[in-house]
Structures are given as structure tokens and as C-alpha cells.
């Protein structure tokens, strides 16, 4: 694969040509498609052409269980496309000479392509969730060239693993250490930035029961956790600098961290936080928010209990939630711009290089890896009401051959449903059988649009802004 990557680097156009996926010739809906469509929209990023029938054939429960335990295989064309990106194959120090924008662009393209084409959409949904949970801002302190390692070693490795292991990996991630200023955290000048966000945003939650004194003592525990920058050492890796560590005794959340612990002080803090009931609740509420659209209710208690019983095993929490009827019966969940863009690419069977479409994410307000604050992109609809114009323009450009590096074959797509064009657009985009009283169908019928126009309008509809 490495040799392949080198030889393909110069011919991305050919790669993307090869990566053009064939559309199924029969896109008639299976019986009762709507619960399956909601399942795909919530667990992943919506159906690709033909996927509703595939999932209906094997059964939704079987599909969810497959998704919870992805194997190493994936869509071959996707792997070919990803092989072009050196940011995915090299370690951080090697990327230092690349311009920041180039690294971020490659990483963003990989995120878009994986969410669009991977066989494992649940994993990509979880990567999106954890990427925002452990947010890194590419434009601060040259975070761009450290983020690819963080993306691989922290987020993707543990996305469906255990939360405490992901937390431990994040704490030693050079991208996180520099993003939250921990390289400035030394025994003479403890810097509280990482300590505070670790408890407020990564584990306990803001009302999780810690005090300002805990913040200060946790900061002391992490003094000396920094990034290697000495000559002839593996630059850009985690380094514990014992000279900068405050080795005194500390009291953290009622636990005594005994003196002389060195690097184990921070590791002990991470273990305390990873096993804390407030963390269990906080992570449980994040999961219910992601999959049910709400942070309250019986599922929070249930998932928090599973967290505590399984030491934060993520698939053990997801399994009952994703196989429950509550998943497909809940209120619609608003799509963020990334969710909208990827679901539009999927539902139309679009070809994309993952690069040209990034300008549309900018205009919708969600350029990837570019949220400055450590809380990650907001998931409330209210934050994204300014994105509607960007969504409509993307829907239009994608379907009219005007989006750089992306396109769809609208007429072939609609014809495969064996329905009239307006009805076909509703079937393809909204995954529902169209009765004569379907309001969207009536509106599309009156629009005088051709296949491209109908598809654009269906993607622009309010219904498609939710999952």
C-alpha cells in the first residue's frame, strides 16, 4: 500500500475516475423503508443508493451488530482515494514542512470520503462525535500538523473501543497538549487550561462535582507533560519532563495523589476521571444526544450504568441503544453542515474527491478541524440557522455539475426508481413512498424542474435537514 501511495500521488484525477461507483439499476424502495432510512441516518450518514434494500435483506439488527464490530476491510475505491494523502501515512514531525492548509485539506478530504463511502458508517459517526468531543483547532499553535496523528491514534483507534483508553490516549496526544497549552504547564507556573477542559468538557461535565481547587491540583498533576523537541529525539511525540513536574502531594476529587509519583500522577487522575460516575453520565448524555437528539430521559441512566459496569466500553453502550425502537421513533435530529453535506453525497450516489466540496462546508460554517474552542462544533439547530443558503447552494451546484470535484448522474439515478421524476426525487432523497397527498411531492411537481432541479430541491427541503 505504501508503494502504491507514492506512485498514485501524482494522478489524483485518475484515482477519482476509478473511484466512481456504479449505481444500482433498481432503486425501488423495499417495503416499509422509513424506519430503515432513519436507522441509517442516525447510526451513520444516511443511505447510499440501494442500501435500504441491502439492510432490509439482512435485517436491521444484524446490520447494527456488524457495524459495532468493523473489520479491516473497506470499499476498495475508498482505500485507493485515501492512499493519495500523505497526511494519513506520515508521522507528525514529517508533516512539519507542509503548509498547514495542505495538511488540514487532506485530513478533511479523508473525513468526507470515509463518511461518504466507508462500509462502516457507525465508526464514522463515532469519529465525528469524538473529534468534536476532543476538539483540536488546526490553526492554533500549528495544530494542523499534529492533528493527523491524533486523528489516527486517539480518535479512530478508540472510536469503538473504551472511553477511558481514548481519554488516556488523548491526554498524551501532542495535538491536545499544545492545543490546551499543557506544554506551558510547569511546576513554577501551573497552567490550568488542560486541567479545566479535561474535567469540564472531556469527562465530568461542568456540573460534575469538581471545584476550582481540583482544577489547580489536576493542573499540578499534569506539570511536565509536554511535547518532545530536543535535538535527535523523536520530535513531536509525548514527553514527560520530570524536571518540570510538581512532585508534591495533591488532593484530587477526594483522592490523595501521593508525592513522588512522577508521570503516574496524571495517569492516576485519568483513571479517577475515567471511572467517575459523573463521566459515565456525561458520556451517556452525549450518546443519547447524538443518537436520540436529547440529553435527558431513561436512556441516560441506562447507558451510564452500562458505562460503569463495563469500564466505559463504547459498543456495550451502543448495542441496546442502536437496536431499540426508540432510535427510529424519536424526534428528528437536526443535521450539522457536515452531516448534511455527507448525507447529500451519499443519497445521490455522488462521485467526489473530498476536496472541492470543502469550500461549501466553509460557507455553511463548518470547515473541519477549525472550531477554535474546545467544546467542538455546536449541535443545536439554533447555531446553524445561518447555514441554509449554503445548503441550498451546495444542493444546486452538486446536481448541476457546478460543484468542483463532485457530481451526480441525476437522470440515471431518478430513472432507476421506475417512478416519474418528481416522485423519484422524493424516493431517492427522502426514502419514502409517495402518496398522492405528499406535500413535498406536490411542491416538486409544481416546480417545472428537470431531473437535476428536482434532485436539488429535494436535497434543499426542510425534511432533508434532519435525520
Amino acid at each position, binding site marked *: 500500500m505504501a508503494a502504491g501511495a507514492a506512485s498514485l500521488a501524482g494522478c489524483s484525477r485518475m484515482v477519482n475516475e476509478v473511484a466512481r461507483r456504479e449505481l444500482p439499476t433498481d432503486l425501488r424502495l423495499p417495503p416499509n423503508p422509513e424506519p430503515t432510512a432513519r436507522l441509517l441516518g442516525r447510526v451513520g450518514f444516511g443511505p447510499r443508493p440501494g442500501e435500504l434494500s441491502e439492510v432490509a435483506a439482512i435485517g436491521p439488527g444484524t446490520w447494527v451488530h456488524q457495524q459495532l464490530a468493523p473489520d479491516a476491510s473497506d470499499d476498495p475505491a475508498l482505500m485507493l482515494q485515501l492512499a493519495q494523502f500523505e497526511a494519513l501515512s506520515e508521522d507528525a514531525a514529517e508533516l512539519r514542512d507542509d503548509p498547514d492548509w495542505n495538511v488540514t485539506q487532506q485530513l478533511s478530504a479523508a473525513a468526507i470520503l470515509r463518511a461518504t463511502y466507508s462500509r462502516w458508517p457507525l465508526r464514522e459517526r463515532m469519529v465525528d462525535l469524538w473529534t468534536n468531543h476532543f476538539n483540536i483547532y488546526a490553526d*492554533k499553535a500549528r495544530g494542523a500538523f499534529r492533528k493527523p496523528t491524533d486523528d489516527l491514534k486517539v480518535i479512530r483507534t478508540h472510536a469503538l473501543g473504551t472511553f477511558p483508553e481514548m481519554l488516556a490516549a488523548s491526554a498524551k496526544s501532542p495535538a491536545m497538549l499544545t492545543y490546551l497549552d499543557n506544554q506551558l504547564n510547569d511546576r513554577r507556573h501551573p497552567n490550568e487550561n488542560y486541567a479545566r477542559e479535561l474535567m469540564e468538557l472531556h469527562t465530568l461535565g461542568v456540573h460534575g462535582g469538581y471545584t*476550582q481547587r481540583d482544577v489547580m491540583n489536576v493542573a499540578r498533576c499534569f506539570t511536565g507533560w509536554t511535547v518532545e523537541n530536543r535535538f535527535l529525539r523523536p520530535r513531536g511525540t509525548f514527553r514527560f519532563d520530570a524536571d518540570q513536574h510538581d512532585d508534591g502531594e495533591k488532593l484530587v476529587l477526594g483522592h490523595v495523589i501521593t508525592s513522588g509519583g512522577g508521570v503516574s500522577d496524571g495517569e492516576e487522575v485519568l483513571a479517577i476521571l475515567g471511572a467517575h460516575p459523573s463521566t459515565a453520565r456525561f458520556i451517556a448524555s452525549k450518546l443519547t444526544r447524538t443518537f436520540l437528539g436529547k440529553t435527558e430521559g431513561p436512556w441516560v441512566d441506562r447507558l451510564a450504568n452500562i458505562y460503569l459496569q463495563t469500564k466505559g466500553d463504547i459498543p456495550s453502550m451502543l448495542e441496546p441503544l442502536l437496536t431499540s425502537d426508540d432510535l427510529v421513533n424519536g424526534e428528528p435530529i437536526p443535521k450539522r453542515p457536515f452531516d448534511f453535506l455527507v448525507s447529500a453525497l451519499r443519497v445521490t450516489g455522488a462521485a467526489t474527491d473530498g476536496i472541492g466540496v470543502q469550500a461549501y462546508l466553509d460557507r455553511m*460554517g463548518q470547515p473541519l478541524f477549525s472550531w477554535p474552542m474546545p467544546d467542538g462544533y455546536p449541535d443545536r439547530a439554533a447555531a446553524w440557522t*445561518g447555514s*441554509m443558503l449554503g445548503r441550498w*447552494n451546495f444542493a444546486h*451546484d452538486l446536481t448541476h455539475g457546478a460543484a468542483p470535484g463532485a457530481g451526480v448522474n441525476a437522470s440515471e439515478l431518478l430513472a432507476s426508481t421506475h417512478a416519474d421524476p418528481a416522485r423519484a426525487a422524493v424516493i431517492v432523497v427522502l426514502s419514502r413512498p409517495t402518496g398522492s397527498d405528499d406535500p413535498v411531492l406536490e411542491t416538486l411537481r409544481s*416546480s417545472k424542474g428537470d431531473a437535476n*432541479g428536482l434532485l436539488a*430541491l429535494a436535497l434543499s427541503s426542510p425534511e432533508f435537514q434532519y435525520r
Partner: protein
Amino acid sequence: MSNDWRSCDGYREALAAATPADSMASVSRRGLLVGLGMGAVGWLAANPTLAQIAVRPGSRNQRVLVVVFLRGGMDGLNVVVPKEDAYYRLRPSLGLKGKSLLPLDDFYSFNAKLAPLLPIYRDGRLALIHAVGSNDHSHSHFEAMSAMEHGLPQAGSGTASGWLARHLESTRADTSNPLRAVALGSTMPDSLRGASQAIAIESVADYRLTADDPEFRKTLGDLYGNGKDPYTEAGHATLEVLDTLNRLNPAAYRPSVRYPKTDVANALQQVAFLIKANIGVEVAALDKGGWDTHVAEAQWLDANLDDLAQSLAAFYTDLGGETARTTVVVQTEFGRRAAENSGLGTDHGRGSVMFMLGGEVRGGKVYGEWPGLEPNQLEDPGDLRVTTDYRRPLAEALRHCGNPNPSAVFPGFVEQPLGLL
């Protein structure tokens, strides 16, 4: 724009874009007259499409509040500098002296990078408030910003909506206007969270459908005609704003003065366009990032102040006669530690400076009680004390802009006007 909250790296663009030619001279009284003639009146007369737009009832006299949020914590002590020995003891390297200072009165001086604002100050239309801040002692950007954008003494007191959103809610003048408030950026800031008649716009000139097809626009109107979910309501408002802006043809608009080529200048230029167009905008919110000067402060602060001062001065001149109904508030989440640190920068502190400028501002004066910089006057761990609650100037601005009860916007707050307006 609103995402541009960089600690240090973002300044390079600002440095590169700063145009030294735009000195004080271009923002002189002559500039102001040019602004009056060509900016407001000249452009309106020369733009026949404007005549076709029904000016909203009462909107011509509608006062406008422009809020500029400086994200990262502006170092007020090196922006409006006190004449105190302690200042130089605390800041042996960063302390400003000589030609780096422009005296405002017997005690305070401007950082010389603010020279473009000096004529407005001397003209009595720029007021400064020193040692201003919130009651947030966390030293956390996010907590402190959250406090201010929600209009609270400190973060996390349970109010979800933004202070500007509550202001709009409590003065519901014209419920049919989709553009009572505008955020210049791609996402809505917390201060406008919950506002139903607000929209985030990155670029007024680019605010149009790429589909050159009236049928597409019409069908979107049908799709977004009714429905009470957030995206349907947002889509409905977006279409109304699109129609309004398309009639105004912002792409053909030219400002009456030359603005710097920076993000904040670009945002202010668009605010000026919207104010002049007289379409009922009551609130505009925008950000300028990059004030978190932990290291090499002089370099970053100079570039940032240069940009801010030139941009505000250009905006003020460009507005011409419209300054009479415009009030600009410049705020930041906290100031910085009184003593410089070992990296020739400053760490997170407390009290900072607020600016208020506009045609009806009682300026030419530094407001607020000076808390002093002697060790016994500083607050742990060595911060300028906050002697003026940041909500005092904001409440005055709200009352000035027609809010009959600003205390309702700031829960538990009792108005104590400084006499700014």
C-alpha cells in the same frame, strides 16, 4: 470570521494586510465631510433600485447597536495606559513610553497604534471605560465569554439565550422584519442565541443563490412556507433576507472610504452598508480574534490595535450622517495580568477596557474608577480589579437604543448609568 479566534498565528495575515498608507490623515475631518457627502447621501441617490424599496415604518430613525467582541482577552493596560510608576515596575519590557503613547488627559494615554481613533476621541464621540469586566474569576476564555455573551455576572447561571437576543425579544418593534439583527460570520454568536429575527451572514455581497433560476427560488418559498421547526423558520427568514439584499444589489455598492483589507474591516464595511440601506437592522455583532497575547505581546497587540483602530475609523467616516443613530460597543472577555511574564507576554487577568463610539456618545473621556496597580490594589493573582460592571455601559446602550427596561435583559442587574449616552 467568528471562527478566527487564534492565539497567535492569525496575526501574520493582519500584519501583511495592514496598510501603512491609511494613516490619521485619511480619517481627518476632510474625510468625514467626504463621508457625509458621498457615503450616505451620494450612494443612496445614485442607486435607483433603493427607491423601490419600502423603508420600514420607523426604521429610518431606528438606532443601531454594533457590538464588536475582541476574543482572547485584550490587554487593557497596554491599550489605555495609566501614568503610574507601578505600571513600569510591573512591565519593565512591555511598558509603553515616549512615542508609543498619545496622551488623552493628565493620567491616561492611548497606545499610539490607536492614533486613527484620536480625532474621534477629541471630537467627543469616543468614550473609554477602564477597569471594566464581569464577575467571572475563572480566568477561562470560555467561561468569561459565556458570561458576557449571555449577559450574566458569571457563566453558568442557567440562562440559555444571549443578551442581544433578549434585547430584541423585549423590544419587538417590527415582527415582520427578518433582519433586525445580523451576525457578520458563518455561525451565530452566543450573544444572539435564541433570536428569531437574526441571521448570520459571512458576506453580504455573496449572499445569493447560485441557481440563476426564479423557479428554484419560488419552489424554495413553497418548501419553507410554513412549519415551526428551527430549520424551516431559518429557511423562511433566509429567503426574505435574500430578496431584500438582492434588491439592494450589494455587489455594486462601494463604500465612501478605503477600508483596510482585513476581516474586521470587511465586516464593518458590510455593517455600514446595511445601516445606510435603512432596512431596519437594529443590532450587528462581529468578532475580532487574536488577543490572547501570552507570548511576544508587543508584536501581536500592535498589529491588532492597528487593524482595529483603522477599521473603526474607516467605519465611522464611512457612516457619515448615520453615525447619529449608531452606537458601537467594543468589548473583550477579560484583561490581562498586570505583570508581564517571562515570555514577554501577559497571562489571563480581569479588568480591561471597553470602547463606546457614536454620534450621540458623550466621549472624549475615560470613564470608570481607577483601581490602581500597587500590590495592595491588585487582586489575586495580580490582576487589575474590576471597578465597573461590563453591564453598566451595555445597559445604557440598550436604553439608548429604545429598550425600556434593560434590567430585564440582564437578570438581577440594577442600572447605574455612567452618563455615556
